[in-house]
């Protein structure tokens, strides 16, 4: 589904990603872990199409297409979803209007007619139930005045509405209490199907108690330095990141 090959990227001339390769197949959940400043969020930004990141080398192929050439909105319509680490507040734009526009853009892309007002509201209702979000949130402006947890739940709600093929969740767990964490994780688990994939970016192992990854990668200093099964997450939780740092330094020496 997604093939990243030797991706290098910089922000403002500073090299952040230093050659990342990754292969995500349909139905897989990949966890990307790593200490602060390792490049996790930059990777998410590149995949979603943020312009401030400059790609210096490498390729990203998504469903056989060159992802890096696509505008952010086209990536979304082709099935990529980014769950933001810091969802943006947009005063004056209602959640209903926002989601209606987004859903209908997706439908147009698929050659479908826009949803009728009643069908759309029914869809909203169903998805709100699925992700257990307060139905009042939908009547407010996008993220305006939402608590940290509400913002993250709102990301999962949007993901449920748009039914992406590849969802990238950028530290969706940060700042969540245990109940919110459970709701977010349940949302992901309910939306998981054999034909869609997730990249879960997280600093802590905690989220992975609820979302069981197929593959765990450790990102350090712009490179994936370790890839293993879900047991790697537990090891990291236990020992921290230092042993990996040491391992790398030793490798460099030897």
């Amino acid at each position, binding site marked *: 589904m997604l093939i990243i090959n030797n991706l290098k990227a910089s922000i403002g001339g500073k090299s952040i990603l230093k050659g990342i390769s990754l292969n995500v197949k349909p139905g897989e959940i990949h966890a990307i872990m790593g200490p602060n400043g390792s490049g996790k969020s930059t990777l998410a930004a590149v995949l*979603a*199409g*943020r*312009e401030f990141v400059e790609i210096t080398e490498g390729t990203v192929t998504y469903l056989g297409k060159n992802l890096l050439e696509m*505008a*952010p*909105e086209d*990536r*979304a*319509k082709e099935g990529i*979803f*980014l769950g*933001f680490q810091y*969802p*943006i507040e*947009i*005063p*004056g*734009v209602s959640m209903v*209007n*926002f989601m209606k*526009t*987004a859903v209908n*853009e*997706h439908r147009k*892309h698929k050659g479908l007619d826009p949803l009728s007002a009643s069908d759309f509201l029914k869809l909203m209702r169903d998805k709100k139930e699925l992700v257990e979000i307060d139905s009042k949130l939908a009547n407010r*402006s*996008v993220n305006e005045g939402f608590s940290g947890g509400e913002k993250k739940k709102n990301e999962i709600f*949007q993901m449920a509405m*748009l039914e992406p093929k590849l969802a990238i969740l950028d530290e969706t767990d940060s700042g969540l209490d245990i109940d919110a964490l459970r709701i977010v994780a349940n949302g992901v688990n309910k939306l998981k199907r054999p034909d869609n994939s997730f990249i879960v970016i997280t600093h802590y192992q905690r989220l992975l108690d609820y979302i069981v990854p197929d593959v765990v990668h450790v990102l350090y200093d712009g490179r994936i330095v370790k890839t293993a099964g879900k047991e790697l997450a537990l090891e990291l939780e236990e020992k921290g990141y230092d042993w990996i740092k040491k391992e790398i330094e030793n490798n460099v020496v030897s």
Partner: protein
Amino acid sequence: MNGKSEITEKYLGLYKDNIDKISSISSPFINTFRASSFEKFSELGIPSRKNEAYKYTNLDIFFNHDYENYFMPVPSDFIKAEKFRCEVTDLDTHGVVLLNGFYPTLNEKLRQLPGGVWIGSLNEAAIKFPDKFEQHFGKYAKSETDGLIHLNTAMASDGVFIYIPEGVTLTKPVQVVNLVQSDDDMFNQHRNLIIAEKNSNFSIIICDHTLSPQKFLTNAVTEVFVGENAHFDIIRVQNEHNNACKITNTFIHQEKNSVTSSNNITLHGGLIRNSTYHHLGGEGAESYSYGLFLADKWQHIDNFVNVDHAFPHCTSNQLFKGVLDDMSTGAFNGRIFVRPDAQGTLAYQRNNNILLTDDAKMDTKPQLEIYADDVKCSHGATIGQLNDDALFYLQSRGINKHEARLMLMFGFAHEVIQNIKIEPLRERMDNLVMQRLKGELSRCASCMVKCG
């Protein structure tokens, strides 16, 4: 002061040429104000940019012009005005149409509504209700610096009068449609007086339209008295052509525990200056002052707000926004004045502006003068472009960049519009703003003027 500006001289001359005619059609009480106001005007003159309150607004382009005549109506002028119908059909209001600032002479000049409410001609009210009139007229519109207030008092002879007696709630809003129409370039002035007594509750919508393409200059003054515990909302919708200049000066005096809001929505106009003066003249009064403008081409829109916290425990809140396209310019000046005794004051102010081009320009000036200790005050002003993060957020959900920009601009504007409590009007404003942002015609269909 010698050496009055050439521009001021024009209006001194206009006064001298017309004062006999003006006085002959005006009530004696209104005439008693004219000589002293003229004197004050001749001392202050037409505001130049040396006047701090007009630092960012150059009035010369409209004031330095020979207007053929000072407008005086004849009955046939009103026939066209009578035909005007507001396009917002589901807006159920008590309607009043003013033509060039005059109340139509065709029918009765004052009409009574349920509950003892009166609406009609200002000049007629001065004669019919001398007690109420004399208690309030000329009491609130005061300025030691702005000559235009005095020019209005010296020369205006008509406008709208509204009286809401104690305890009365008017469920339907009053809608005043100001039409400007003439065969020649025209300077006109009108004067409104609104008296909302104790425990009353009502709202007024003022719509400013131009019906012919001539060059127009309007200088209007509105005085509002809001009695104890009364609720009053004023919404002004401005949709005029690019060759029109509108100056509005609204003075709202509030008594104890009263609540008022003012909302100036400027969709279109060559040069617009809205001055809103909120006088919190009793404990526990609350005032909300909102404004939104969309400017393009060479338009210039200026909002000037003065909130006077004269008593303790009052609350005020200002929210003004502007979207500027092409080479348009705008100004905001928000003054919060907290007097020494006004303890427990809460006063907030926010001014946000979006510049869509490099040539558009906005000047914003918060002016906080606080002489009491126990005060909570805040202000914030921004001038910038659309938020890139917000734009990306919308795009990342599949909304194309063009649509996402529109949504953000609409959301930006809607934050002001959502404060309009009259639903059909709020929806109409949302629609007009959206059409305007999309570059479609946003002007009311009744307008024959193509601004191009």
